[in-house]
C-alpha cells in the first residue's frame, strides 16, 4: 500500500510538473531570423474585440503608413506579424517601450500615447500575428526558403575571387558559424551591408596627442568617440584632425559590381558556414 501511495504521488508530481512546463512554454522557441514557427494547438491569447478594433483604428492612423494597415509591412517598416519582439511580448512589456521611445536609429518616431491606447495597439498587433500564422500562407515578407536559388560552389568561387570578400573575411575565421548566428533575410542583409558594424576613429589633437576609439557621433561640426575605458569624448571638428576607419564600407563598393546571381550564390555559400 505504502509503495502504491508513494508511486501515486510520484506520478502525480510528474504529471503536475509536466503540466506546469507545458503552460510555461506554450510555443516552441522561435528560430533566429525572421521566420516565426506556427504555434501548436495551445490557444494564443485572445483579446476583447472592442480593444482590437480600437487598436486597429489607432494603428491605421499612426502606424500603417510604415507597417501596413494589417501590420504585415508597408513603406519602410517591417512586417510585425513576423517579429520576434512581438512574439516575445507579454501584454505590451516590449511593444510598449518601442512605441513610446521609437527607434530613432531605424527611423521610427516616438508616439506619446496613453496606457489604454498602447494596450489597444498591443492587442491589435498580437491579434494580427495570431491571425497570420493561424491562416497559413499568403504572407508578405521573405522566408529563408525564398532565398535558396543560388549555388554554393559558385558562391565560394565568388567569395574567394571576384567578390573580394576574402580580402577581409575568412570562412574559418570571422565567418565561421555565421549561418548559425543569422538566417534568411537577416543573413542576406548583413552580407550586403553589416549595418551594426562600428567604425573606429583616431583623433589628433593640436598638441599632437592621438586618441582612438569607437566612433560615437559625427556631423560636420562635432566628432565623438568612446575610448578604451568606455568614456565618451567629443571635439569640435574644426579643432582637431581625425581619420575614420570603416572597413564595412568596402561593401558599398561592391553594390554596383554584383549581379543578382552573385548575391544568391554568395547566400548559398554562406549558409554552409554553420
Amino acid at each position: 500500500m505504502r509503495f502504491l501511495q508513494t508511486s501515486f504521488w510520484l506520478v502525480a508530481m510528474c504529471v503536475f510538473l509536466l503540466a506546469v512546463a507545458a503552460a510555461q512554454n506554450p510555443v516552441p522557441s522561435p528560430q533566429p531570423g525572421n521566420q516565426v514557427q506556427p504555434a501548436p494547438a495551445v490557444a494564443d491569447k485572445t483579446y476583447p474585440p472592442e480593444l482590437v478594433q480600437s487598436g486597429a483604428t489607432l494603428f491605421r492612423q499612426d502606424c500603417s503608413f510604415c507597417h501596413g494597415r494589417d501590420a504585415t509591412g508597408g513603406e519602410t517598416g517591417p512586417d510585425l506579424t513576423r517579429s520576434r519582439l512581438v512574439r516575445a511580448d507579454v501584454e505590451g512589456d516590449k511593444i510598449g517601450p518601442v512605441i513610446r521611445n521609437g527607434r530613432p536609429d531605424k527611423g521610427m518616431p516616438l508616439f506619446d500615447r496613453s496606457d489604454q491606447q498602447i494596450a489597444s495597439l498591443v492587442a491589435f498587433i498580437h491579434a494580427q500575428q495570431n491571425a497570420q500564422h493561424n491562416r497559413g500562407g499568403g504572407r508578405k515578407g521573405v522566408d529563408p526558403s525564398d532565398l535558396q536559388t543560388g549555388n554554393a560552389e559558385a558562391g565560394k568561387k565568388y567569395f574567394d575571387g571576384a567578390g573580394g570578400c576574402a580580402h577581409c573575411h575568412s570562412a574559418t575565421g570571422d565567418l565561421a558559424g555565421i549561418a548559425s548566428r543569422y538566417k534568411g533575410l537577416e543573413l542576406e542583409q548583413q552580407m550586403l551591408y553589416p549595418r551594426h558594424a562600428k567604425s573606429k576613429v583616431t583623433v589628433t589633437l593640436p598638441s599632437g596627442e592621438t586618441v582612438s576609439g569607437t566612433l560615437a557621433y559625427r556631423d560636420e561640426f562635432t566628432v565623438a568617440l568612446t575610448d578604451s575605458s568606455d568614456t565618451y569624448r567629443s571635439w569640435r571638428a574644426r579643432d582637431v584632425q581625425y581619420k575614420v576607419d570603416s572597413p564595412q564600407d568596402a561593401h558599398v563598393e561592391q553594390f554596383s559590381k554584383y549581379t543578382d546571381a552573385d548575391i544568391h550564390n554568395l547566400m548559398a555559400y554562406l549558409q554552409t558556414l554553420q
Partner: protein
Amino acid sequence: MMNSSRHAFLLAMSALLVALSSGSLLAQAPDDPMLLRPPVDSWPGYHGDYSGRRHSSLTQITPQNVKSLTLAWSFQTNQTIPLKSSPLLVDGILYFTAPDNVWAVDARSGHQVWHFSYPRGEGEHIGQRGVGMYKGSVFFLTPDAHLICLSAKDGMVRWKVEIADVSKGYWTSMAPLVVGNHVLVGVSGDFDNLSGFLRAVDPETGATEWQWNSTPPAGSPNQTTGGMTWMTGTYDPDLNLVYWGTGNPTPVLNGSTRPGDDLYTCSIVALNPDTGKLVWSFQPSPHDTHDWDAVETPVLVDGDFHGKPQKMLMQSSRNGYFFVLDRSNGKSLLTVPFGPVNWSLGVDKKGQPIPNPAKEPAPDGRLIAPDEGGMTNYRSPSFDTKRGLFIVSAHPSWSVYFSKPADGTYGWSGADYDVWGTGVIEAIDYQTGKIRWTHDLGSESGAGILTTDSGLTFSGDAHGNFLALDSTDGKTLWHAGSGSHITSSPITYQLDGRQYLVTSSGGVLFAWALPES
C-alpha cells in the same frame, strides 16, 4: 461748381471708401495678383509662388553676414509629430499645419493668434504639407480625406466637403493649390488598389468643379490603379497650364496584373486648370514596380537651353533621374541620372527610362538602386536662377526588392528592404546634368532647399543642423543645431524691412534673422 459742404461730403466719402477698401483688401488676401506675383512680405502658397523654384529675390542676408544669423523667435506646437508643412505668410500671419491641426502665428513675435484642431478621425496621420489660401479663406486637408475651409481671421469653419472615401483606403495630406477660382486638391493611398485623381473645387462652397482621374476605376481588366496626387503642383499663367506629378501604380511591387506603361502613374501631366482637360503627359517611370512616385516638384524655369530660349519644367524624380522638359508640349530636353541607378535599360526616344524586367521585384530578391524612398522624396528642391543650378537633397542608396505570387496583387504585394544609403546636396547644371558641387550630409536628410539671389542655399542635414551654404561651392557658412528631425522645406520673407528665414524641426517652428541694429 461745388459748394464747400458738398466738397466736404465727397472728401469724407472718399476717405471712408479708402478706409473700407484697405480694410477689405486685408481680408481678401491672397488675391490673384498676390498669388501671381507674391510681394516680398508674403509666401502665399506652398511653393511661395507658382513656379516651384523656391528661390527668393531677397538679398539682406548674404554669404558675408549669414554667420551672424540669429534666432528671432520660435513657436513650439508641443506635439511629438515632426512638422512637414511649408508655412504660408499672408498679411503678417504665418499659417502652418500638422495632421488635424492648423496654427496661425504672428510672424513678428511667434505668438499664436489661433489654433484649429480637427477631431482625430480615421486615415493615416503620416503628414500634412500645409494649407492653401484665397481671399481670406484657408483650405486644409484632413487625414480622413475631407477639405475644410476656415476663416483666416479666426480659424472658424466655413464649410467642409468630402474629397474621397477614407474607408476605401484614401487619405489626404497635401497643400492645396489655388489657381484662379479653383482650389486644387489631391489624394494619397497606396495600400489599396485605388484610382488616383486631382479635383478642383469652388473656393466659396467646396463644390466640385472638375476631376481629372489619373488611372481607370479599380477592377478594370489589365489596367492599373494608383497614380495618387500626393504633392502640390505648379502653374504657368501664360500658358494657363497646371503641372502635376502622379504617384506609383497599384499593386505596388507586382506589375503582372497591369501590363504596359500604366498611364498616368509616375507621370508629369499638364492640365487646363479651368476644365481639368489633359494637355500633355510625360512618364518618368513607365510600368513602375518600385514605388517611385513622380510627385516631386515640377519646377518651372524660363531660360536658355543650349543657346535657345525655352519654357522648361524640371523634376528630380524619385527613381533617380533628373528630367528637363519643354513645358509647352512635354517634349524631353534632357534625361540624366543624378545618382546611382541600376534598374533601367537606358532611355527611349521620348526621353523616358526603359525599365529592365530583370530588375522587377522577384521571389528571391533583386538588388536595386535607389531604395524605395528614392533618390529624393517630398523635400523641395530649388532652382537658383542666377547661377543656373538645380539644387536637390539626394539619397544615393541600395535596397533589395521581393515579390512572390503568395504576396497577391492587392496593395503592396511584396516587400522591400533598405541595404545602405547616404545623403548629399547636389547642385546640378540644368543644361547638362553635370553636378557642379556637392555637400555631404552623412545620411539622408528630410530637409528641403531654399536659395536666394544673394547666393545662399538653405537646408539641413540628418542630425537636425540647419545649414546655410554658399551657392557657388556648397561650403557651410552658418549652422544651428535644432535638436530634432528636419522634415520640411524652408521659406523666407521680408517684414518690417527685416528678412526672415523660417524653418522647422520636430514640432517647433524657428524664425531666423540678422541681429536688429
